[in-house]
């Protein structure tokens, strides 16, 4: 639609951004792949060919096994928790109660805060001390005579990472709520009313009408939350520092590269993370862009 001069100009204007993205994302990914195939260990770069040895070593590395287990537990608890809680909150807010806007803002505000702040506060809330030194949520449970809920939180063997997921649910469930609420609002009122006239109860309306119509929202939430779990990093650092029982790939990568100077291994972890994220995200981008052109 534009003249030649404008065609030329728009290329000139967009070129720096495209070039920057191309270099900082795609060239860098290629570069990381190359590092992951090298023997680089130590301060000075070493690109000596090492084949896929770094990857093979990782899969035999007990620490990486812990990372995979922790990522699976975290993802399960975080994704399921955020989706259930987010859906529950969205349905609650969908009832046309007074103060809806206030509650909505309240459930969403943790999104504005950094994982580091969340982590520092939850570290004290999840204080595992017992006896006379009991504090945090455990102390609150004892005030409420719910002592059976007291637990060691993130210091629990094997399942400690689930406590971190709890803090993550606190932070992200408002986001899931916002997704569901936007979805609920886009469903025509007539559908609901028709079902109610046919004698459906409120519960049946949500279960058999809304939930199936919301399945694209659920899919988006699964993918977005799932890819976030694969990347979880700062929250764990802020709650517990670098502790082996709570290790995840993102922390292993950071520590082995910048503390241990195992660049080759660090790059391999980074690439494995990228592949796992790409498996989720690439079909999602394709699907979203396709539905966009259709509408």
């Amino acid at each position, binding site marked *: *639609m*534009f003249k030649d001069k*404008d*065609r030329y*100009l*728009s290329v000139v*204007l*967009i070129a*720096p*951004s*495209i070039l920057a*993205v191309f270099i*900082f*994302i795609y060239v*860098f*990914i290629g570069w*990381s792949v190359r*590092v992951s195939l090298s023997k680089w260990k130590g301060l000075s770069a070493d690109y000596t060919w090492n084949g896929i040895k770094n990857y093979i070593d990782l899969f035999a590395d007990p620490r990486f096994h812990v990372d995979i287990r922790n990522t699976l537990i975290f993802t399960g608890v975080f994704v399921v928790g955020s989706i259930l809680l987010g859906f529950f909150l969205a349905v609650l*807010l969908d*009832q046309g*109660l007074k103060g809806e806007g206030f509650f909505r*803002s*309240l459930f*969403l505000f*943790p999104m*504005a*805060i*950094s994982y*580091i*702040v969340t*982590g*520092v506060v939850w570290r*004290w*809330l999840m*204080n595992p001390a017992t006896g006379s*030194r*009991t*504090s945090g949520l455990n*102390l609150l449970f004892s*005030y409420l005579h719910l002592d059976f809920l007291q637990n060691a939180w993130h210091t629990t063997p094997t399942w400690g990472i689930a406590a971190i997921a709890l803090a993550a649910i606190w932070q992200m469930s*408002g986001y899931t709520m*916002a*997704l569901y609420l*936007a979805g609920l609002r886009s469903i025509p009122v007539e559908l609901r009313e028709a079902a109610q006239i046919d004698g459906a109860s409120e519960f049946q309306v949500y279960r058999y009408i809304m939930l199936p119509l919301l399945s694209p929202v659920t899919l*988006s939430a699964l993918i*977005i939350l799932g890819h976030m779990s*694969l990347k979880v*990093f700062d929250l764990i650092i802020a709650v517990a520092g670098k502790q082996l029982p709570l290790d995840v*790939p993102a922390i292993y*990568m*950071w520590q082995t*590269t910048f503390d241990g100077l195992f660049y080759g291994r*660090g790059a391999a972890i980074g*690439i494995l*993370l*990228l592949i796992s994220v790409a498996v989720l*995200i690439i079909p999602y*981008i*394709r699907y979203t*862009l396709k539905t966009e052109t259709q509408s």
Partner: protein
Amino acid sequence: MKPKLRLTKYWLYIPLVGMAIFYLLPMYVMLVTGFKSFAEIDLKTMWNLPHGLALDNFIEAFSKLSPSLLNSFVMVIPAALISSMLGSLNGFILAKWKFRGADVIFPLILFGMFIPYQSILIPLVVFMRSIGVTGLPGLALAHIIYGIPITTLTFRNYYAGMPQELLEAAKIDGADMLGIYRYILLPISIPSFVVVLIWQFTSAWNDFLFAVVLTGNQEWPITVALNNMAGSQIISWNVQMAGSLLAALPTLLVYIFLGRYFLRGLLAGSLKG
């Protein structure tokens, strides 16, 4: 239908208020701890209200964190402004002038929004050192470039909704591409700019990973400084709580006053612009 349901639905406030308490618990602890005097501080009375309003903790936390708060502002403001400007230009070009290859380039840009930064971290650090852009300018540059995907997406979706007739009319009046952008699209883009600026401000302010690998201790932004404070044995938990509140305050204030725009940015981040 709605008015009839009102009366029977008051019980719904019970779960609603219960959930509100859950979301406010950490805020409550941060606030009451922050306002306690040093003499009152005890983990065993963590949930008690303060006896008076003391500012000891905030003063102590601020004296430790003020340089890094300043670092954060110095880095975040240009990062947010520049990546928003670039996003607006890119969005305009991608929405209104589909050049050959645009259909390939756009998803490639989008993918950049989701990548785990661990996969580009080593080249990023090596590259920034080799071009001599380190510390806060390097960190700002990283936020600008890795912010381009989301800012471009938001503006592209916004401009795509603009009626083509508007642009055609301007062209008949003799406006060229830059004129259309400058005099027609830019003035009506203010809401999108607010969305994108807030989003970029929040994500750069809250970032930890880039900050920790790209800056040294003189240039630490607030997230790194707070995390190190929390990790040290010397600084007590009450000061950490006050420090957390200081670190959260700027983005919280933005959220409180501009929450509506924040939500739109959030939904754009899941591609549902």
